[in-house]
């Protein structure tokens, strides 16, 4: 082995020290990750409120295909005016709204939220669609939008 110049020797020993620090850091990180793994988002609680009723399709089909069903149905209802179809967003809400809060949203225990939070799916449907079942239209206050 050729003799290393003094300067280079210093660099290698410093590198070695750095590497060991890196190793410590990596160990800390990995164990941190493992800890975080234990406190990941809890498995969704799928609570069926009307267990005596029948969903619009068998549960395994619903789990996979409910989003496709809804997307097809909204065009049929809105653009073609087909009412009374088996699939309907308001229908889902009537059956799946929580008995406690009356809504399909609110917390991980609410039907349309728990699963989606777990799967990191964000729906914009609720910008417009009322997530609460049996909501009655409220009359306009005096200062409402519809004013001449």
């Amino acid at each position: 082995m050729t003799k290393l110049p003094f300067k280079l020797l210093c660099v290698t020993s410093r590198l070695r020290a750095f590497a060991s620090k890196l190793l410590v850091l990596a160990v800390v990180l990995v164990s941190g990750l493992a800890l975080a793994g234990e406190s990941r988002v809890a498995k969704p609680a799928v609570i069926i409120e009307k267990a005596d009723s029948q969903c619009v399709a068998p549960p395994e089909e619903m789990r996979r295909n409910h989003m496709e069903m809804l997307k097809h149905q909204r065009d049929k209802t809105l653009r073609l005016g087909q009412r009374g179809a088996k699939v309907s967003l308001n229908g889902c809400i009537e059956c799946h709204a929580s008995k406690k809060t009356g809504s399909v949203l609110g917390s991980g225990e609410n039907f349309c939220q728990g699963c989606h939070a777990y799967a990191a799916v964000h729906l914009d449907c609720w910008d417009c669609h009322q997530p609460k079942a049996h909501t009655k239209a409220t009359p306009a206050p005096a200062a409402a939008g519809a004013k001449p």
Partner: protein
Amino acid sequence: MSETSSSRRRFVGASVAGLGIAVAPGIHLIAAQGPAEPAGASNAKRWGLLVDASKCASGCDACVKACATENGINETVADARQGSQWIRKIDLQDKRTGRQLSLPMMCQHCANPPCVDVCPTGASMKRADGIVLVDRHVCIGCRYCMMACPYKARSFVHQPLTEQNPEVPRGLGCVESCTFCVQRVDRGQTPACVEACPEGAMVFGDLKDPNSAISRRLAQVATTQVRADLGLDTGVRYQGL
């Protein structure tokens, strides 16, 4: 036989009958034939509205209130100019004679709607039965249609909403306008404004049916399309302008 296995057999039977081939639960190579689809809007009809302006009282806004209640237009807006107006009351005066007139103005449900022509996404649309709607699943909120409408009939929602009527979804970032209360019409009812008018000044019905109340009135009395010069063939007609 247990309850579950018999219902399961029925399900399997149904999917075989419908030529459904299931690879795994929920995944089909050939979609099972579902039950017949409900009938939709048909072009055998054209919905129209006749407003008798001679009966319409200045200062009465029963139609506007009924519209707001039915369609859940109940938000308070910071700037009144941004409030949603599906229907509004207009007072007019002939400057030469002093004759005064009051009338409700809303989407005229044109047969040739300019809002549909200008829409870049296909959200602005006309149903087969003539009802002009915004498909808010497709609306990007560009507001070209608001510019194109000669009747100023459309509004834009400027704020998040939470108190919607479940039958009338509406929300931030989309354009909206009178739908002839499509959710009521599809159930065989008339629009909320028509039902609420204390003077009975509005008649709603099928323009293509010669025996409907609206067609019979149109055959008897002189009626006007607002800005008929534009050739839009409006579904809303006025009497006594």
